[in-house]
């Protein structure tokens, strides 16, 4: 049956994307503005033979997701700021144990409970640095319902391919807006499956990278018996306190991401090649930025937009390429400190004319506010 266009909410599109990517396990705990993801999963997952579990809190949710992933499932959870904070310890385990999983963080205003129903983009640094220790993961940020779908598929692909947790840093605006969207037919969008071991089970080393830099991952329940611990471990998965091993492990967690950095870092540019005024943006603010650039061009200002689709690893190269060419760079974002602006300044240097537009009152940034920064 041909797919029909549907008026989908961002949160629904995320669920559609997850199902498309083959996700068959969701464990979560309701929290505004992400609850529709849980509700959709409760409704849709059982129909495709999947599992929906409502857990007693967010700690339990991400722990169950890690467990299910190790049992071979594509697994995910969704939450917002307070819940994402509770997930940090287990996210560290997912990094350390190289467990593929997807976490949706629909950002809302904080700190703490904050404005529970209002949007923010203030978790950018938490996405990257929220948990302790030497660790890294991948974070993506959608700006539309369509991107909610495609980036969720991409998130699963990255998670499965690189054995890493992938966080989608959405926000209340994209999560709750509705747009027309047609779910693509099966096969139209690439779906990546995790690499499984092929050799004799007794030789299986769950943390020994192959030539591609990634170790194959067996499933509990398969003939490949393996050991996973949150403690420092060697290629065999057993605890290992040797300094040389620890250095190798920590480096490995980073190097696999660094090696595939160009595949992982996604950006979109809009009239940015010749821009004298470059707006660097992400998430829902992209929409205001594009409108502002359009209005600026109508007034004769050569303005363009660089949208950071991947937030982490940070798109240094892409920011440098377009940012160095522009006279002025504007970074609008819905947080006080300029979490992305700080990264952009790091890339372009302190001499760059970088203008921050920060809004942190729970309201959406408008094109007019971005235009003002061009004056």
């Amino acid at each position, binding site marked *: 049956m041909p797919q029909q266009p549907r008026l989908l909410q961002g949160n629904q599109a995320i669920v559609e994307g997850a199902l498309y990517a083959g996700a068959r396990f969701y464990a979560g*705990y*309701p*929290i*505004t503005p992400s*609850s529709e993801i*849980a*509700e959709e999963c*409760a*409704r849709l997952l*059982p129909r495709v033979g999947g599992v*929906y579990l*409502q857990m*007693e*809190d967010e700690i339990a949710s991400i722990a169950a997701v890690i467990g299910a992933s190790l049992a071979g499932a594509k697994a995910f959870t969704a939450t917002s700021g*307070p819940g994402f904070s*509770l997930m940090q310890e287990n996210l560290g385990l997912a990094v350390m144990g190289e467990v593929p999983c997807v976490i949706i963080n629909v950002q809302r205003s904080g700190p*703490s*409970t904050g404005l*529970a129903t209002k949007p923010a983009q203030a978790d950018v640094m938490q996405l990257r640095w929220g948990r302790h220790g030497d660790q890294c993961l991948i974070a993506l940020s959608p700006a539309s319902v369509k991107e909610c779908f495609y980036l969720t598929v991409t998130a699963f692909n990255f998670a499965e391919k690189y054995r890493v947790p992938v966080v989608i840093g959405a926000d209340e605006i994209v999560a709750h807006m509705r747009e027309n969207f047609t779910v693509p037919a099966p096969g139209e969008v690439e779906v990546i499956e995790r690499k499984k071991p092929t050799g004799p089970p007794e030789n299986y080393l769950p943390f020994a990278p192959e030539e591609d830099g990634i170790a194959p991952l067996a499933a509990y329940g398969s003939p490949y018996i393996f050991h996973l611990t949150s403690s420092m471990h060697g290629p065999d998965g057993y605890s290992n306190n040797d300094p040389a091993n620890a250095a190798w492990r920590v480096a490995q967690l980073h190097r696999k991401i660094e090696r595939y950095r160009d595949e992982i870092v996604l950006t979109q540019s809009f009239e940015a090649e010749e821009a004298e005024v470059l707006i660097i943006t992400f998430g829902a603010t992209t929409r205001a930025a594009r409108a502002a650039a359009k209005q600026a061009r109508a007034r004769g200002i050569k303005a363009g937009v660089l949208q950071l689709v991947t937030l982490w690893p940070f798109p240094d190269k892409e920011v440098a390429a377009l940012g160095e060419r522009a006279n002025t760079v504007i970074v609008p974002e819905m947080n006080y400190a300029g979490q992305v602006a700080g990264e952009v300044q790091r890339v372009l240097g302190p001499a760059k004319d970088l203008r921050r537009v920060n809004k942190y009152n729970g309201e959406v940034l408008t094109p007019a506010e971005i235009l003002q920064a061009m004056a």
Partner: protein
Amino acid sequence: MATLEELSTRRELLAQGHRLCAGCGAPIAVRQVLLALPPEAHAVVCCPTGCLEVSTTIYPYTSWRCSYIHNAFENAAATLSGVQAMYTALKRKGKINEDFRFVAFGGDGGTYDIGFQSLSGAMERGHRLIYVCYDNEAYMNTGIQRSGATPRGAWTTTSPVGHVRTGKHEGRKDLTAIMAEHHVVYAAQAAISHWRDTVAKAEKAWEYAKEGPVFLNILAPCHRGWRFPMEKTIEIARLAVRTRFWPLYEVEKGEWRLTVNVANPLPVAEWLKMQGRFAHLFRGKGNEEVLAAIQADVDRQWSELMARCRSAVPA
């Protein structure tokens, strides 16, 4: 206990003008507990996130005429533990002379599930505080998702009803008994329909909280989540007791005692039928097993409770 006339003259610590729904059971439970506070004592109230917290603290107002602290879902009992422990230390040193009492009001979400760890810790450490759960059997504040208190068979947005699923598949946690098994000084189960019983239990609670931890579990129906006409809140609560779905009892220093006997119970279906969240169980055929399982839950719970109640059953 205080007479109704006396109670009516006491200053309400939860002021009118809050934004809880008309017909909401939660503020009725809170007021029945707070009215039993000795007038000379001060209260410190702690609420985890939930309908009660959100709706009584709408910007820029508050309904609380007393010290009040809010923390996120999982933290109320731990937060109040800190307040009470420091108060006790200061009191011991003679730096505070006033009589303060400590009470947390959480919904079943913040109590049965995410807040369970901090609640259990506070009860085990023996903090001198009251934890009151206003139990409306689902996460109403975030949009009617199932909780550990949701009964078998109930529809919620995360225990949907369809061709295969018939609402929640699992039974509910018996949290009052679990708290009693922490060997707290006083634990009781109450319902807003039985105000005299609830106020009597609350009076004991305030008194016992001077010695150690107290837990009250008060059934507070939610017409939005249970799907019944808003004027029927009290009736629904009363029927939960009349069907033995929600027995009223107390555990006083280890002594289990039924406080309201239900000699001739109505079938639990009479209570279920009044609520839209169970409507699917009465549409067509094929749900007899679920209905029988709910009745079996009720019967088992009652007989277990009877076995624990050594004292005479009141008339």
